[in-house]
């Protein structure tokens, strides 16, 4: 087996997916080749890191997103070698996407932080900034799908820090407000969406989220945000909540307060 052949089989080898003959050949090569041993050790580290992420079927968009990142990275400045996963390792794509994004973010981030010396470099910086932004978006979306609520909280913070979160991120945040199983994640998403208040569809979605919301804490947070934005279109939702005898008392009171404020600010 040559080093080139081993490199192609390395991922399979680490995943223990090679058959007996191939495994023996790979092991024999590794025993005799220090360079390949080093590469295997490095890749093994990344592998173990990815193993610690929860197992899950990749979403429909994951493959597409991964290919986009890879293309964007390849089109940009090359910053160093990246281990590419063989096509057959499909189940690892979402984690590979996160790992690749983080690797590239680190590399690009380093370049981005160096102040530009010439006008030409300033253009490069703008391009890198764009790439960092789209990587941040990918990481956000990946984090928002994690099983751990702490990871989802981090995803919302990432979204909050984005300059102009695109439609996919906004949808993900709205989904979090309406459907996340953890109240803390929902509350955090309400804060992040409050920052995007310039968009009327976001304001409308926030108002629509109130009747469907089962957590009074989140209802109160939504009311506060809408009142802050002086969103008078939210008045019917607030009135419905204030008059809903089944709803939590604190939420009803907040809705009544909100209604007063909105009517006063008109």
């Amino acid at each position, binding site marked *: 087996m040559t080093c080139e052949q081993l490199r192609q089989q390395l991922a399979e080898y680490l995943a223990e997916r090679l058959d007996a003959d191939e495994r023996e050949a790979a092991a024999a090569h590794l025993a005799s080749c220090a360079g390949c041993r080093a590469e295997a050790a490095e890749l093994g580290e990344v592998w173990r890191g990815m193993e610690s992420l929860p197992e899950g079927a990749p979403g429909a968009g994951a493959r597409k997103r991964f290919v986009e990142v890879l293309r964007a990275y390849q089109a940009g400045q090359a910053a160093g070698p990246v281990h590419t996963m063989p096509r057959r390792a499909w189940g690892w794509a979402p984690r590979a996407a996160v790992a690749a994004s983080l690797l590239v973010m680190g590399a690009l981030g380093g370049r981005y932080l160096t102040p530009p010396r010439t006008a030409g470099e300033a253009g490069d910086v703008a391009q890198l900034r764009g790439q960092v932004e789209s990587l941040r978006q990918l990481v956000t979306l990946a984090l928002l799908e994690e*099983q751990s609520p*702490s990871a989802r909280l981090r995803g919302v913070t990432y979204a909050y820090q984005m300059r102009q979160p695109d439609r996919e991120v906004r949808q993900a945040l709205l989904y979090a407000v309406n459907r996340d199983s953890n109240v803390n994640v929902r509350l955090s998403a309400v804060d992040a969406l409050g920052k995007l208040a310039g968009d009327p569809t976001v304001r409308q979605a926030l108002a629509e989220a109130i009747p469907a919301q089962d957590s009074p804490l989140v209802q109160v947070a939504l009311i506060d945000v809408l009142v*802050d934005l002086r969103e008078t279109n939210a008045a019917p939702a607030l009135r419905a909540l204030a008059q809903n005898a089944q709803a939590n008392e604190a939420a009803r009171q907040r809705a009544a307060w909100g209604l007063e404020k909105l009517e006063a600010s008109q």
Partner: protein
Amino acid sequence: MKRTTVLVAALFGLGALACKPAAAGERIIIPARESARPRLVNASVLDGSITVKSYSGKDVIVEMEGAPRAGEPAAGGMRRIDALRGLQVTEEDNTINVKLNPPAFGKVVISVPADTSLKLKANLGPITVEGVRGEVEVKSLNGAVTLTGISGTVVADSLNSAIKVTMDRVDPARPMSFSSLNGSLDVTLPADTKANLKIHTDHGEIYSDFEIKMTGSGTAANREKGSLSPGAMSGTINGGGAEITFRTLNGKINIRKK
């Protein structure tokens, strides 16, 4: 791929075997598996309480203490036979699911290896956790939440009850969040914790013995902007680091130094 499918099928098989209802006083032991990945215990006890304690073993042990609601002989020798007093414990991959549904009532006590993550939900009864190193997610309606000796990260919310947490170590990379509508929040952090605090409270008071460097006082700043609702206060301790959010409407917030 094939190997994974066989492995998963075997685990489901094991999981099915592990699923059996237990009456009061019985214990269910879920043995340790070969995987080095820490496990997640997902417990949902609607009418009872949950107590989780860490211990030095590798297995997860689930016990139930508590008086069954039904089953005692009623008049005329008739006995209720439809009340399910049982506990359902199933294992799926790395997650152990523990369920106690109404009308069953009881105190569920789970002993776990220290590095287990928890996802606990209870409506009526208190939730108590001691000495766990991992991620602790807690949802309570009316029962007090008491978490002590936790290393890792906590994300907790309650509707009406107090949340009291003592952290031995805070994981700087993972945000924590505590929310309650009417309950108070009392969190103790190691004195050298580096954190970015975000605090929302309407009518509650905030106390702390940390030196908090305020970076934004919601109310004053928001009033200038013409904002109509109270905003969040933000500050850092020891230079900033882990994000910790506190939210309560009517409760008092205590952020204590250990």
